[in-house]
C-alpha cells in the first residue's frame, strides 16, 4: 500500500482508464496524421467565415457534426492549428466539442430523465458553448505565441509562410513534389516525400506521411496521457476514501460549485458518461452538478497533461484558473436561477 492506496486498486483503475481512453487517443492521432498529410494547407482559411467572431461561434457548434470526446480532440486540434486553424477557433472547438455533441446531449438527457432532463441538457449545451465561445473570443486578442507551445507556434508560422510563399500553386497543400517551387520559404510543411518517393515501393507518399505523423503524435500524446491517467487513478481512489469530507463541503452552494469542479478535475470521467455520475451525487445542488458537467470535459487531470502538447505551460495555468473561476461563477448563477425557477 502506498499513500493509503492499494497497489492492485491503482493498477486496476489505471488500466481501466487507459483502456477506455487509449483507443480514442490513437484514433485522434490517426485522424491528425491524415489531416496533416491530406488536408490542403489553406483549406481552413478558405472555408472558415472571414468574420472572425462568426468563425469562433461556428467552431463552437462543430461538435454537432464532428463529435469527439476530450481525449481525441487534443491531437486533432494540435494538427489543425499546425495546419493554420486560428487559435481562437481551435480552442473554441476543443472546449465545446466534448459537450456540444449528440452523444453527450443524449447521455445528459438520459441521466437526468428523473426530472428536468431537457432543461439540464439544454443548459449544459448552452453554458458549454458560452464558455468555449468566450474563451475563443478572448483569444482573438491574445497573440498566438503567448498561447501555443513553441514547437506548435513555429509550425503554425511555417505553415503561414508556406502558404504565402507558394500562393497560386494548385494543390499546394499536398505539395510532396513542389519543393522546388517553394524553395526555402516552404517552411518544411511537406511530408519528406521528395526523398522517399522512389523508395516508396508504390505506397502513396501522403499515406506514408500520415502514418509517420500519426505515430509521433500518438507517442507525444500518450506520454502526457499516461502521466495524467496515473494521477487520475490515484485521485479516484483517494476521493472514495475521503468522500464523506467532501460531502459536508458540497452542502454549501458556493463551496459545492467549486467542490464539484474540483471533483470533475480529479475524477476525469469521460464527457459522454459524466452526467450519470453527476445525477447520482446526493445532496448537491443543481449549480454544483452543472459546474461538474461543464468544467469536467474542459479541464481535468489527464487533460491538464494533454493540453501541454498544445499550450505553453505558463499560459496553461492561467487558462485553467480562468476557466475554473468563469465556469464556477456562471454555474453558481445558473444554479440560483434554476432552483429559484423550480420553486
Amino acid at each position, binding site marked *: 500500500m502506498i499513500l493509503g492506496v492499494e497497489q492492485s486498486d491503482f493498477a486496476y483503475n489505471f488500466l481501466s482508464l487507459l*483502456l*477506455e481512453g*487509449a483507443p480514442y487517443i*490513437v484514433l485522434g492521432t490517426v485522424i491528425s496524421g491524415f489531416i496533416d498529410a491530406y488536408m490542403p494547407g489553406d483549406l481552413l482559411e478558405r472555408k472558415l467565415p472571414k468574420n472572425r467572431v462568426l468563425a469562433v461561434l461556428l467552431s463552437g457548434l462543430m461538435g454537432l457534426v464532428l463529435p469527439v470526446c476530450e481525449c481525441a480532440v487534443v491531437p486533432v486540434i494540435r494538427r489543425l492549428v499546425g495546419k493554420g486553424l486560428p487559435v481562437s477557433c481551435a480552442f473554441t472547438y476543443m472546449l465545446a466539442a466534448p459537450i456540444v455533441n449528440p452523444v453527450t446531449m443524449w447521455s445528459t438527457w438520459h441521466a437526468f430523465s428523473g426530472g428536468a432532463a431537457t432543461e439540464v441538457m439544454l443548459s449544459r449545451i448552452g453554458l458549454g458553448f458560452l464558455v468555449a465561445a468566450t474563451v475563443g473570443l478572448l483569444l482573438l486578442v491574445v497573440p498566438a505565441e503567448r498561447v501555443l507551445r513553441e514547437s506548435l507556434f513555429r509550425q503554425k508560422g511555417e505553415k503561414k509562410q508556406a502558404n504565402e510563399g507558394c500562393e497560386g500553386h494548385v494543390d499546394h497543400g499536398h505539395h510532396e513534389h513542389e519543393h522546388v517551387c517553394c524553395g526555402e520559404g516552404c517552411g518544411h510543411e511537406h511530408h519528406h516525400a521528395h526523398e522517399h518517393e522512389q523508395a516508396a515501393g508504390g505506397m502513396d507518399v501522403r499515406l506514408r506521411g500520415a502514418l509517420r505523423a500519426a505515430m509521433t503524435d500518438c*507517442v507525444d500524446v500518450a506520454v502526457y496521457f499516461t502521466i495524467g491517467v496515473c494521477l487520475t487513478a490515484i485521485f479516484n481512489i483517494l476521493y472514495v476514501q475521503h*468522500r464523506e469530507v467532501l460531502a459536508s463541503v458540497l452542502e454549501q452552494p458556493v463551496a459545492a460549485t467549486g467542490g464539484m469542479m474540483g471533483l470533475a478535475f480529479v475524477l476525469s470521467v469521460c464527457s459522454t458518461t459524466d452526467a450519470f*455520475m453527476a445525477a447520482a451525487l446526493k445532496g448537491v445542488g443543481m449549480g454544483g452538478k452543472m459546474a461538474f458537467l461543464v468544467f469536467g470535459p474542459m479541464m481535468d487531470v489527464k487533460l491538464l497533461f494533454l493540453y501541454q502538447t498544445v499550450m505553453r505551460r505558463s499560459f496553461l495555468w492561467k487558462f485553467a484558473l480562468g476557466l475554473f473561476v468563469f465556469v464556477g461563477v456562471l454555474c453558481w448563477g445558473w444554479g440560483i436561477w434554476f432552483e429559484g425557477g423550480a420553486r
Partner: protein
Amino acid sequence: MTAQSKWGKIVYAMAVLLWGGVLLYFYLHPQLDQYLAEKFHLYVLVGGLACWVLGIFNVWEACASEVDATCCGHAHEQGHHHGEIHPLVALLVVGLPMAYALEVTEHGVSDQRAAQLAAGAMSRDGFEDVEFPQFSLEELKRVKQQAEDGAYQMELMELFFSADDREMREVLEGQRVETVARLRDEPEHNENGKRMRIYRLYMRCCAADMSALPLLVEFERALPQWEANSWVIIAGTMSYVKIGEIDYPLLLVDRVEQTQAPAGAVRRF
C-alpha cells in the same frame, strides 16, 4: 538518439507497439469486461490494431531507410513531424506504468476499496435511467432459473430497481428470490438491529465511475458473524419499506451461505 534518428523512430514505434499490444491483450482477455463496459470493447480492438499498423509501418520504414543520422535524408530544425520527447523517455513513461499495472492488477477492486465504495448512504438518486421491459409473473417464471427451494435467481440490480417499477414490484412482492452479493452491516436504517446490507459494484464505462448498489436485508434470527464484505448467496422473501419519502426494497432473509467471489464480480448498468 533523437526522435529524428533511425533508432529514435524505432523506439517511438516500440512505444506505440507496446500500447497496441496491451490493448489487443486485453481485448482477448476474458476479464476485459471487469475493466470496461462492453460498448467500448470494439474500440479497444480497433485502437490496438491501429497502434500495430502505425508501429509496424514505422519500424519497417526506419529499417528500410539507408540514412541513419536523419529521418528522411535531410536535417530538420523544426521537428514538426518528429516527437518532442526523447524516445527512451517516451518509452519508459508509456511502458513502465503499464508493466507495473499488468504485474499487480487483480482484475478487480480490493476488498478494502469495495467496502469503501459500499460505505456511502443508501440512495437511488441518479439511477432512474435503468428501464426494464414489461414484466409479469409468467415472464418471471419463464426467464428466471429457480434454486432447489424454488427461489428465483435474480440480479441484485433487478431487485434494487424493482421499487421504482410498478409492474415489477407487484410481481416480486411476496416472491422468494435468491441473489449473489457481498454482505456488510447496515449503518443507517437498522432500528431493530436485525438488518444488514448486501451490495454489488456496478460500472457504466470504466472503474472511474464505479458505484455500489445496496439492498437492505432483514434476518429473523441472529445476524451472520462473517467477515465484513463476504460474498454470500442469500435468499428470502421480497418486500418493500418506506424510508422517508422513498420506497426501498427489503429482503426478508430465510437462507444465507458464504460463497466464493463469482467470475465477473463487477457488473455493468
